[in-house]
């Protein structure tokens, strides 16, 4: 599957052959930083001064590179497809190799960052538990009522959330049984067939 690059995109990337490969590698690093932490205009300014071009040019070059890397990573295109997609830009073989390497080196991390953009529910982080026995309450003395107190740690969009819950021994066993069944499902023939065939 080939990447389709718009005219504007190609224009932005046209800046790359005009600088040497060390600079392109540096732009690659800036592009990944941009994905991790957001834009840093100061870096664009200092690079622009060193290369004697406008900071807009630098910014477009980095953004073009960023878009190239994210689209490739999103679609998880093969090496061959990447090379063919970049070929239309008419760059030198050396530059093409550099871009491919940049893609392969950073693909995994970029995909991790992109996965954080998906709509998400709170996700499991950790579980702490404690065994309690209730001995008395205002309405009844001399009790022996076992309970399990649970602290469920959840993450959502970077926020850490905890919920304190309680359950009785019978329900605890039921929970364990149900969730073990859930884990077993992945090992069934049906699920294995799906995993094998959807690629």
């Amino acid at each position, binding site marked *: 599957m080939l990447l389709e690059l718009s005219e504007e995109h190609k224009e932005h990337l046209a800046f790359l052959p005009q600088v040497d490969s060390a600079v392109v590698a540096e732009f690659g690093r800036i592009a990944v930083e941009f994905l991790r932490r957001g834009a840093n205009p100061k870096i664009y300014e200092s690079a622009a001064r060193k290369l004697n071009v406008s900071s807009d040019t630098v910014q477009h070059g980095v953004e073009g590179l960023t878009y190239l890397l994210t689209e490739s990573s*999103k*679609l*998880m295109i093969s090496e061959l497809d990447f090379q063919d997609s970049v070929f239309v830009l008419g760059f030198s073989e050396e530059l093409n190799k550099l871009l491919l390497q940049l893609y392969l080196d950073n693909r995994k991390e970029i*995909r991790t960052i*992109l*996965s954080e*953009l*998906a*709509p*998400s*529910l*709170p*996700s*499991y982080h*950790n*579980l*702490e*538990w404690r*065994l309690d026995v209730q001995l008395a*309450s*205002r*309405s*009844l*003395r*001399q*009790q022996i*009522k*076992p*309970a*399990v*107190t*649970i602290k*469920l740690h*959840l993450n959502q969009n970077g926020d850490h959330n905890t*919920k*304190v*819950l*309680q*359950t*009785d*021994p019978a*329900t*605890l*066993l*039921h*929970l*364990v049984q*149900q*969730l*073990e069944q*859930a*884990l077993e*499902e*992945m090992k069934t023939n049906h*699920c294995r067939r*799906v*995993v094998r065939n*959807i*690629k």
Partner: protein
Amino acid sequence: MELSESVQKGFQMLADPGSFDSNAFTLLLRAAFQSLLDAQADEAVLDHPDLKHIDPVVLKHCHAAAATYILEAGKHRADKSTLSTYLEDCKFDRERIELFCTEYQNNKNSLEILLGSIGRSLPHVTDVSWRLEYQIKTNQLHRMYRPAYLVTLSVQNTDSPSYPEISFSCSMEQLQDLVGKLKDASKSLERATQL
């Protein structure tokens, strides 16, 4: 057990065969237990024809006294001798003391269950449901191909009648971690019950 004068007066009236004959006594006693323990007991529990001849104010007073005493006795897990002592002090005859103790014994379990269920506690997990899905793509990321679980805990809250649910997603490894920890808890529970 601290009981008010009102309860004591009510019991003294109940002890008096002039105010309450045997039949009326038994009916009132049963009505007291019924209004406490029967979820569907209606307000007409004292409307029995054999109680009609008694002054309604007296009837209500004695009913309230009996119900109050029953709850206090249940709360403190009173034994037969405690009950007998108090009833003797209220001038109950032997027959009525026996009757009371028998009725109390018959209803003791239900009473304790009722009292034990009153009170505040943390949200209580009652059930779990799960969903297994195979993630293929999002608009930001294609070709994902990984399984994921969606787990929902059903929770009951003593404070509000609502039944909130807690849902969260997890990967296979995370679910294994969760199940492992719950299993540790249940093993620990098993060991504690054997001590």
